[in-house]
């Protein structure tokens, strides 16, 4: 069977301790929370840290709190299962509860954390393979190579952001806290990701993600997350669509967020679709036009478990259905 490479493991005594360890060891160290992604990748030879800094000991990062002034604060170490079952999350951020509940399997949701899911390594079926397989295929930009296997002329890695919760966080205008040697900084989830599969977020090696803050949704906000996958468990999204819309008393759309995942290395907000929804009653034509914009904007590649033409075609269907999900109860 595949064995983990040898490494030292040190549980963090505090956030500061974790950050100090990461700062001292630089690229030789990696933090681990649930380990559902990192250890599997280490077995494949994708990472070989000399030191793994365990974050599970940081129990202070396992709290979820909500108040109607400041919104929702989620400690990064909350399990995906805890997020999916939290009553405030279910009441005020149903798309997040839904997305968290659609990650992996019950075992993965019990071990995997919300912070880990937001930091999920981008995925590609040229990359998530054993060292022997990658050697036989030829290495790629993301690891050991100098070309992208799925888009050979691409200057950047095209691995997929397959986090189920990332597009939802973006749709809710969430912010995240990153703590590093120089203290804490807060950035919008929108600015956290970048569309380069080999450098998919702006978190520095000596920073850890400690908290996610979601603002109080505007009253009348409705939201959902739709995920296409080949099986009803286990699978990462082939494509996913998060939608959040707010309407005023007349049913006119005042805010709209339409965000895709699994079509690029970062969650992709479809502003053109949002514009088409704003100011409308969110009825047939505007939603169909918005779905069309989603279809046009999403450009999947041949690096997931279904053909790119199918995944592209499904963008329209998923967007349409997601919009129907959020609109239906309004009428």
């Amino acid at each position, binding site marked *: 069977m595949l064995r*983990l490479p*040898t490494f030292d493991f040190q549980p963090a005594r505090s956030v500061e301790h974790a950050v100090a360890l990461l700062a001292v060891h630089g690229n030789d160290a990696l933090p681990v929370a649930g380990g559902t992604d990192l250890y599997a990748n280490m077995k494949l030879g994708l990472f070989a840290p000399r030191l793994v800094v365990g974050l599970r000991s940081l129990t202070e990062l396992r709290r979820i709190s909500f108040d109607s002034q400041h919104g929702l604060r989620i400690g990064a170490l909350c399990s995906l299962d805890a997020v999916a079952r939290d009553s405030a999350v279910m009441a005020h951020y149903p798309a997040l509860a839904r997305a968290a509940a659609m990650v992996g*399997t019950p075992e993965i949701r019990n071990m995997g954390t919300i912070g880990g899911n937001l930091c999920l390594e981008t995925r590609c*079926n040229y990359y998530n*393979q054993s060292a*022997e397989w990658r*050697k*036989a295929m030829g290495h790629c930009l993301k690891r050991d190579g100098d070309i992208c296997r799925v888009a050979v002329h691409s200057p950047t890695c095209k691995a997929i952001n397959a986090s189920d919760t990332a597009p939802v966080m973006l749709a809710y205008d969430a912010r995240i806290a990153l703590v590093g040697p120089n203290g804490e900084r807060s950035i919008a989830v929108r600015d956290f990701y970048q569309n380069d599969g080999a450098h998919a977020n702006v978190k520095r090696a000596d920073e850890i993600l400690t908290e996610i803050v979601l603002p109080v949704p505007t009253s009348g906000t409705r939201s959902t997350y739709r995920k296409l996958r080949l099986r009803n468990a286990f699978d990462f999204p082939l494509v996913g669509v998060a939608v959040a819309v707010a309407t005023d008393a007349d049913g006119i759309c005042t805010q709209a967020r339409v965000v895709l995942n699994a079509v690029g290395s970062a969650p992709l907000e479809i502003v053109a679709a949002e514009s088409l929804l704003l100011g409308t009653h969110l009825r047939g034509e505007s939603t169909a036009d918005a779905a069309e914009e989603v279809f046009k904007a999403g450009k999947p590649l041949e690096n997931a*478990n*279904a053909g790119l033409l199918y995944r592209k075609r499904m963008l329209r269907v998923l967007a349409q259905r997601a919009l129907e999900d959020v609109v239906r109860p309004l009428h």
Partner: protein
Amino acid sequence: MGKNGAAPSQAHVVGASLPRIDGYAKVTGAAIFADDIALPRMLFGKLLRSPHAHARILSIDYERALRHPGVVAVAVGGDLPARYGILPSAQDETVFAIDKVRYVGEPVAGIVAEDELAAQQAAALIEVRYETLPSVMSIDEALLEVDGSGEKIHPESRKANNVHKEVHLTFGDLDAGFAAAERIFDDEYFFEGNTHAALEEHSAIASFGADGKLTLWSSTQTPHYLHRVAASVLDLPASRIRIIAPPVGGGFGGKTEPVAHELAAAHFSRKTGRPVKFTLSREEVFYTHRGRHPVRIHLQTGIRSDGSIAACRLQTWLDGGGYGSYGVATTYYTGALLPVTYKMGAYAFDGCRVYTNKPPCGPKRGHGTTQPRYAFESQLDEIANALGLDAGAYRAAIAIDPYSRTINHLRVTSCGMREALSAVAERTDYSEKHGKLAPGRGIGLAASAYLCGAGLPIYWNPMPHSGAIVKVDRGGGVTVFCGTSDCGQGSQNMLAVIVAETLGIDILDVSVCAGDTDLTPVDLGSYSSRVTFMAGNAARSAALDVRERIAAAAGAELNIAPDRCVFERGRVFDRDEPERALSFVDAARAAEASFGTLAGVGSYTPPEDLHGDFKGSGVGPSPAYSYSACVAEVEVDFETGEIRVERIVLAHDCGRALNPAIVEGQIEGSAYMGMGEALMEESAFRNDLHRIPNLLDYKTPTILDTPRIEAIVIETEEREGPYGAKEAGEGPLNPVIPAIANAVADAIGARIYATPITPERVLQALDGTTGKLRLRAPVATRTA
């Protein structure tokens, strides 16, 4: 006798859904599987595998690997040069490739070290220089003549292309049959290759003793064949080799032939004098493979005006991968069992297996019969629709009769196909629903047949196919010794049921010692659904052998004729005056006092009149056939193409159910596995590599994808089976795939002529962008 000397609670073990005897250990985790075995001073092995699909090996340098800390030994092709293969006609593999490699993942060298990680890291230090050759990755390419720039995968093969085996058989007057047909249905299908995906990755542990004897534990379905091949490859007398098959964590045909890591473990243990373990990673299991062949199928069926089959011509092209494996048998199997279900006026079969540069294909549950069955039952569905006939009633009308011969001369005995067909149709209201459900909803039906054991052994010999010894202890405990390997199907329990029933004792008073070539008589192995029928008969005969002596002694004690002795509920009593009785223990003691040590022997050899007399008649005959029928109901999403299987009703004629709960379990597992093959599973390749050699990307259904499964046990009385039993391990899988295909066709009003039936293919069919498959040029491969 029960555990505390209490009488068994019921008179008969046969037919009772008792907990299986090996279930306790498996459920609690106490069962010792191969990889659980750890011996003192054990080394760990790793195979270095080829990164090229087709290449010549120029040199191998392992000096650096040998110097890696912890490494103890390295071996390459020349160290174990003997060729082997499961079939005498295909001795084409070596433990490590010699001269050339034929698929990505083929073992090139082996390495053993103090721990697994060191072996893994050191394997990467072995430097192999290759000269790559053009690869052949499809049936089409393999059928082309190899020109100057290429090289045949097996240069010694006689043909100018990469064809491995051709078969041409004709029964009856085909031309006259087609001439008499009112309509001829002519369709092409493609059945995608897939793999077994057993939970347990293969594992082998070898220990070579100072006495020069080798003990080899392996997760194998065929300890006897491993015994033979190990003797030949290691050049050791078979008498110095002991093969032990621990409980196997799923086989499905993937562990039915000796493969490199088992022989490498033995070699390294001999070389180092230390125990050696090899456990494959999941990716390595995908390369070891021996899974379902991809098969292209051309099927022409001529129908008389009354719907009966006047003539049928089947052509199959099998993508065999890099080596022979069971492939010659697989090729014959694609044609041999089609006529076992329905009467035909004439039948012709042309099979062709090609080599490609992929992991070798072999047998998977249903071995070679699954692919043409999918095609045939799909076409029958179209025939029934075209003739305006009910699919179930139509099949029943053309069904083979019990106790008859097929057009290809196979002997059919008991046959519950008509009963199975009506059971599934009635349970689901098939006739009321088919063609009448709302758009997007569909119902489909199919039937099938399967072997109860291959009628002939893999290597020719006149000896029994299965043997058993039943030993009776003075305390009343009974041990049955038999060479079977339990790959989860319940063969341990089956042996206990047969012996407990024959001796009238509690099943927990029977111990089973199986799969150990030092201790147990030969059983050929867990393949071709042969174990219940053959080992069951051997065990029954061994139990009857010892019972005869116990009856003689008990008769003497009770002053009755031995043939009046009844064995039941832990007692031996007079048929006419049941109060004249001895406990089984006392009867056994009396017998031991009279006759000495109490043990019975038994064996089973299939009858000889099962088949015709023509070249190729050796594949297909079986002492009996099982029959199955399935109805599937599906819902299809017209926008996403997603298929939700809502219900599978699967009826199976298993003869007499020795343990109905286990039969139902086999039926349920078949429904699940068949559904995965129908909808998801595929051996997919890209740039010569297996594209998805892991269980995240290679899709098998999760429990959330699995519908309600209703198992219906159809009992027939099979005269030659042990207590009337036939098989249940493989047969029920076959009708599931076409039943789902037929249900999808009913749901969307279009047929998809290939598996797996993915959402993408559903949308293409709905768009009208795919229709019937059309074979391209090199189809005419009949030898001139």
